[in-house]
């Protein structure tokens, strides 16, 4: 079973690589933000898979932290400042 799970992880990593290439090919900031979002979700999925494959419960905590702080990062990127630009 572990071999199957690991194969899925490899495919997810491949999707990660391709979405990174798409991100690099985009010029607009919002498109890049979207790509970052997809990369983040892929990262969480890979961590969850690795947690099972490697029998490391601590990776679940890492996934939780990633999910929670992802909102903070997006919020900081998209919020406007009063009076100033962006």
């Amino acid at each position: 079973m572990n071999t199957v799970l690991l194969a899925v992880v490899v495919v997810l990593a491949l999707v990660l690589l391709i979405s990174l290439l798409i991100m690099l090919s985009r010029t607009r900031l919002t498109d890049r933000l979207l790509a970052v979002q997809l990369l983040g979700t892929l990262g969480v999925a890979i961590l969850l898979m690795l947690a099972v494959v490697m029998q490391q419960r601590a990776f679940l905590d890492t996934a939780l932290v990633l999910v929670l702080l992802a909102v903070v990062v997006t919020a900081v990127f998209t919020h406007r400042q009063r009076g100033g630009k962006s």
Partner: protein
Amino acid sequence: MILDALSVLLLLLGLFFFVSGLLGLWRFPDTFARLHALTKADNLGLGLVMTGLLFQVPDVLWAIKFILVWLLALVASAVNAHLIAVFLHRQQEGHDESA
């Protein structure tokens, strides 16, 4: 054995949604449409992968934590999508020229 097969089925479905999110990001014509495609990958892709893994976990605590990760990811993804949509809307209306 049946559980393993179920796991594989769900994981493959999850992969399908991740790949479709990728395709959406690549091919969809405008950013709002891409946002729509991405939220599918976020919610369903991760959800299905998580459910597939649920049949492989050693004990109940793991399962609880898996579900917790997914629930939080749902909330986070909703907030993120909202923030990006508002940001994009603002840009398109021309209030903000900085990006």
